[in-house]
């Protein structure tokens, strides 16, 4: 099994992701080294925190260009939570920030509806629903419509092209894109490393591991 690089840019629950990868039988390599990134065969971009800070860190660590280059070479790249949001062109979190621009679209805030009990951030398990695309053969292979993953976020992505959307999730009145897939580029708003069986299945699919 080939090693998986987990990008360390100062933000993210690297340990959790690494543990899940290890559990699935792959070898995680946690690193912020741009050279390693360019050489990698499979990369996970985790992320927990603020968009602006994340982009600042990526720039400071000289990871922006390598990430774009890596993605352009059509090698497998999984963005988790904030990591996925960084794929977009820009985010409205705080000031307007530019993202990596790998996927057309932007990042916007979830709407709170206190009276209905819809609180922000969205914390908890919510179901994935298909949005016109088949899941078999994708990172969601083996999952059923309605299977839940664990979410912790206040913002969500709005891809401009419907073709980039693999799954949606409903929270309050918002039906937002929860999984992106375009070629070898995959993004998951939820945390597969914290989502028990279904989450491990998603990660396993990305790692190309055959699950029982």
């Amino acid at each position: 099994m080939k090693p998986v690089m987990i990008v360390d840019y100062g933000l993210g629950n690297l340990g959790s992701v690494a543990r899940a990868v290890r559990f699935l039988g792959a070898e995680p390599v946690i690193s912020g080294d741009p050279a390693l990134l360019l050489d990698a065969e499979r990369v996970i971009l985790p992320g927990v925190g603020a968009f602006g800070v994340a982009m600042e860190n990526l720039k400071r660590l000289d990871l922006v260009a390598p990430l774009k280059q890596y993605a352009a070479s059509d090698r497998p790249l999984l963005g988790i939570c904030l990591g996925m949001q960084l794929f977009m062109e820009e985010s409205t979190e705080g000031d307007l920030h530019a993202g990596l621009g790998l996927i057309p679209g932007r990042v916007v805030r979830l709407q709170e509806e206190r009276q209905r009990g819809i609180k922000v951030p969205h914390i908890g398990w919510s179901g994935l629903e298909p949005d016109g695309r088949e899941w078999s053969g994708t990172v969601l292979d083996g999952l059923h419509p309605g299977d839940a993953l664990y979410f912790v976020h206040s913002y969500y992505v709005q891809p401009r092209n419907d073709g980039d959307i693999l799954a949606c999730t409903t929270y309050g009145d918002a039906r937002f894109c929860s999984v992106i897939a375009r070629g070898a580029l995959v993004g998951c708003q939820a945390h597969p490393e914290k989502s028990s069986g279904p989450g491990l299945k998603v990660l396993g699919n990305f790692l190309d591991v055959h699950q029982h």
Partner: protein
Amino acid sequence: MIRIIPRLDIKGPNVVKGVNLEGMRVVGRPELFAPHYYDEGADELLFMDTVASLYGRNTLDEIVHRTAERMFVPLTVSGGIRSVQDIRGVLRAGADKVAMNTAAIANPRLVAEGAEHFGSQCIVLSIEARRLPGGRYECLTDGGRERTGKDAIEWAEEAAGLGAGEILATSVDNEGTGRGFDLELTRLISERVGVPVIASGGAGCAEHVRDVVLIGKADAVCIASILHYGCLEAMKNVAYAEEGNTDFLKKKIPVSSRSAHNRRGIQPIRLAELKQSLADWGIEVRRTEREAA
């Protein structure tokens, strides 16, 4: 979906269960309960270090580490977290969130610092409240031992403002009694803050869980007694370490079901059963496909 979070109160090598946050009766090893709840569909797990404040030490790193290696749901650790270093240590050991009570009340800035360093989603404000005559709620610290004179609802709001990502609200009066959650306490906090509220303390049956969601407006529910005693009823041989109050396990006393008067009593239940009941009542919960043993 409503999250169901089993809580393991840990003392040394064992899980313990008290009443009104008092008593350290051993019910078994954490290794017995945690994987079992994970398999049964626990949405998160909460580990509480019961004597960290009392003895001034933190001891859960080992069990946290082992749990995180094979159970992939969010893990929260509570008990004796006093500083940013403590938080870092616990997260590094494998926890996803920390819950703070005593230290946060002593120094509210710790909530803000924790949120700054690690993100609000890592910081849970834990409140142990007792009801005062007249209907107000007072915060207690040190495992329900010391009074503070602080209003629980006001404090919840203040902490959310400082950056706490969730509020864990425990009723000391009801905890372990099986008489039900304090619906009023939960509802008052839930309506006051914009962050999720986890209700804790008092579940005796599935109806109580239903009520704290529908009436108490809880976003998540933390339970212990009904699950632990349910576990014990299902198991023939309970693994436990010979330390602490093990008399209960040795005597194999049956936990009585609801007594006739005062509607009090623990009705042990399996996690899967509980979720089924909630679903039947129209409450959305996460269902797992159970692998055949």
